[in-house]
């Protein structure tokens, strides 16, 4: 994969409803933190990558122009990358490619969203063309269709899927309680989740992520620079990204090829043959609890059709074989463009022992993941404590 690359710093805003500051100030909050964390100055940075959802989420095309000052990009090269929900992973990959290729040594990657400034679901409606598919109502419809396709394909009993999805939601919200930066910080019971109002059946309120404002910044560096600058870098062990056809109905989404192939590529690069055994923690992109079940299978963390059994027996819960989303995941914090980069930042915190109260003990190898589009894209980044 070219030269070795490491994460040498991360910075996240307090996520939530951030009417208290303007969008550039929100971006600055994350950028200030990442420079403090990495212990370097903008002078040390060779280039900046930025990404968000379609900028119209906040009402302006090319919002990276608006953030030029907050991104400390004046006088430097800037790349914009966006792939819908997987934007954050794509932003990280752009920075990694930039350094791995030898064209840069230190790259600042930033992603953000300020969803309360517009109507997030309305922007989602502009992601698909408006003529050929009936109005798929933003994310909940697309991903509920997919979840039920998965349940049907493997003949998974409704009640069993419901129980497993409730566990995913409860575990994530418990994680959110331990993460001071998470948006939703609340104690839920399985019953709270399974009795909540229906959004897109079988998906209920607490099976769905919130709309959040937030930004995330990560500084990547080459091996030479990382070793010089950072006492404990998080090394990029492998990355993978795959896309699919435009029309949702053109392929089977229960056996989601883009997740399967993207993770296989990342595992191969990382030399991982048994991900459930070898990984210590996973930050799986989980805007919908039902969808996380499917991801656990497609990421090769359990056999196809058996995610509910593994979840019910606690494999992916705190203290289980492979804790998932100890940060609270997307279910607790969803500034969409940033959500995929937050997964990378959280994976870096875990393998460097800096995750605080939601630290998974002795985590050395972490998977981060995000998906995007109308069931169209998947990106994976695996980080480790050793080069």
């Amino acid at each position: 994969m070219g030269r070795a690359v490491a994460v040498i710093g991360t910075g996240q805003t307090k996520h939530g409803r951030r009417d208290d500051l303007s969008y550039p100030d929100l971006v600055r909050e994350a950028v200030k933190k990442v420079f403090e964390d990495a212990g370097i100055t903008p002078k040390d940075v060779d280039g900046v990558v930025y990404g968000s959802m379609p900028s119209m989420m906040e009402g302006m095309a090319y919002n990276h122009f608006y953030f030029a000052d907050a991104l400390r990009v004046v006088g430097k090269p800037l790349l914009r990358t966006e792939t819908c929900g997987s934007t954050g992973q794509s932003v990280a990959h752009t920075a990694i490619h930039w350094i791995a290729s030898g064209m840069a040594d230190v790259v600042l990657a930033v992603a953000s969203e300020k969803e309360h400034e517009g109507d997030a679901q309305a922007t989602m409606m502009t992601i698909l063309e408006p003529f050929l598919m009936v109005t798929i109502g933003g994310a909940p419809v697309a991903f509920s269709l997919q979840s039920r396709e998965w349940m049907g394909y493997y003949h998974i009993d409704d009640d069993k899927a419901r129980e497993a999805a409730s566990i995913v939601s409860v575990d994530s919200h418990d994680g959110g309680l331990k993460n001071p930066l998470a948006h939703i910080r609340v104690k839920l019971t399985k019953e709270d989740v399974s009795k909540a109002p229906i959004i897109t059946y079988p998906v209920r309120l607490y099976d769905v992520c919130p709309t959040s404002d937030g930004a995330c910044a990560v500084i990547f560096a080459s091996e030479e620079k990382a070793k010089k600058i950072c006492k404990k870098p998080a090394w990029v062990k492998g990355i993978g990204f795959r896309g699919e056809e435009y029309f949702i109905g053109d392929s089977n989404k229960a056996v989601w090829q883009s997740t399967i192939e993207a993770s296989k590529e990342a595992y191969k690069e990382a030399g991982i043959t048994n991900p459930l055994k070898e990984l210590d923690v996973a930050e799986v992109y989980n805007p919908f609890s039902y969808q996380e079940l499917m991801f656990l299978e497609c990421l090769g963390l359990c056999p196809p059709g058996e995610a509910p059994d593994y979840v019910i027996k606690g494999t992916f819960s705190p203290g289980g074989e492979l804790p998932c989303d100890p940060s609270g995941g997307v279910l607790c914090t969803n500034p969409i463009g940033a959500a995929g980069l937050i997964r990378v930042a959280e994976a870096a915190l875990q393998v460097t022992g800096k995750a605080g109260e939601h630290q998974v003990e002795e985590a050395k190898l972490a998977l981060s993941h995000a998906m995007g589009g109308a069931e169209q894209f998947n990106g994976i980044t695996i980080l480790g404590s050793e080069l």
Partner: protein
Amino acid sequence: MAEKYKLIKDLVRMEIVDFTFPKKEYRTGRHDTVLPYNWALGPTWTRFFDGLKEGKIFGTRCKKCNKVLVPARTFCPSCYEDMEEWIELPQEGSVETWCLVNYKYYGQVKKPPYIIGQIRLDKANCSLTHFIGGFDLSDPDKVRRKMKTVSRVKAVWSKEKHGDIYDIAYFKPI
């Protein structure tokens, strides 16, 4: 804990009432952007929509892999070959997946609750995304029981046709 959340705009957004950021002491500025577009649909989709207006569902066949796709395509996504053979598809098919929509969102064309499904029309090699309906949708549990028994559906056409995807009103169970 449920009282911690306030449901606003019906079920559209979820917010925590006791959230601790400063009470609104700074201004927000209202700005709306409304932009009109005219999308070229080209010969393939023009013919597809003309077909709907006549009460027909057209797909096209790939001469290389033989797959029939609907809505009709100009080219095959896998083979990249032109898809020039037009096939009128049967108006019946099987349900691949579905979900009951019970929330409101911008640009919605139907009042919830309604069902969106993926329907594999007979002779097609992909699913068409459309509504499933024609029965009582007010009780989710009843809908779930009903949908367990539904495998085959048939197109119901709108009374007025405009040459768009909504010329098919929905697919009803058979």
